[in-house]
């Protein structure tokens, strides 16, 4: 096991393995999808490109052997969150096709800030983790079994609290929407 791991270990800084290549390619796709999502003037297309980005991230999780999270990502994010977003766009009568005012006047400042933060963080991260490698050949870190074990052994309480939070969010959303309807009915 250790020999195979040693044989599969990269021999230098710039020697990529297949996982890395896949990771980089999917990463580029994800970044591209995200970029289009935040710059396109067509609102519904933005939501759909977001789906692509989130899906790409699910693939990245798989590459990082965190399979449970990958499927949760697909289920929740792609499955429900994006659907909600689409519903929201529909209910707020988002224009189909190009809308000229999708970007606010703040976008130049936004570009500056985003670029600055990107440069800073990339610099810092690359400088810090110049010589760190992830061991992907050992025991699987993110399988369902492993995740279930840790979740219900070590993280039970946060898990339960989270369910309460979900309940609160649910009730809150209902209340928010319902009040409005009552007011509409009264007026």
């Amino acid at each position, binding site marked *: 096991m250790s020999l195979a791991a040693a044989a599969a270990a990269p021999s230098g*800084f710039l020697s990529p393995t297949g996982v890395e290549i896949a*990771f980089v390619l999917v*990463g580029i796709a994800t*970044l591209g999808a995200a*970029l289009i*999502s*935040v710059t396109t003037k067509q609102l519904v297309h933005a*939501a759909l490109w977001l789906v692509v*980005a*989130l899906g790409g*991230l699910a693939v990245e*999780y798989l590459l*990082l*052997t*965190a399979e449970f*999270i990958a499927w*949760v*990502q697909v289920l*929740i*994010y792609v499955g429900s*969150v994006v659907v*909600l*977003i689409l519903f*929201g766009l529909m*209910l*707020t009568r*988002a224009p189909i096709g190009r*809308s000229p*005012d*999708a*970007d*606010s006047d*703040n976008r130049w*400042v936004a*570009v500056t800030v*985003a*670029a600055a*933060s*990107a440069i800073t963080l*990339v610099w810092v*991260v*690359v400088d810090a*983790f*110049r010589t*760190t*490698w*992830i061991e*992907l050949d050992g025991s699987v*870190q*993110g399988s369902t079994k492993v*995740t279930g074990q*840790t979740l219900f052994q*070590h*993280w039970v309480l946060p898990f339960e609290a989270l369910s309460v939070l*979900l309940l609160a*969010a649910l009730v*809150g*959303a209902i209340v*928010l929407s319902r009040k*409005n309807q009552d007011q509409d009915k009264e007026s």
Partner: protein
Amino acid sequence: MHLAYPAVLAVLLFSIGLYGVLGRRNAILVLMSVELMLNAVNLNLVAFDVWLRDTLHAGQALTLFTITIAAAEIGIGLAIVLLVYRNRGSSDVDRLTDLAENGLAGTGPAGAGSTPDAAADEKAEATA
């Protein structure tokens, strides 16, 4: 795998999400960009968890929690955006300026600034 790949990917995703939050007009687009940022964070968490081979798998657990909370947040956020749309007729973030200096909450200090001055002047006159 070099740790830099997921870390840098996370950073770039985060920055793109940042641009979206700061530069998009529609509230729902802002929410979408926030989702991007959250996902970047999730990626970071998972990568570090795998790298550290954490026995508690804190990173992955936190990622699950983050996903859950993001879902709850988007639910409520969209409910609010819908309310705003219903009350104001638009869901543009630019239009929600009640916190401004001369916003909806009265004339604010700028308006009342002249009258205390005038009153103080009159008072000074009277005692002079």
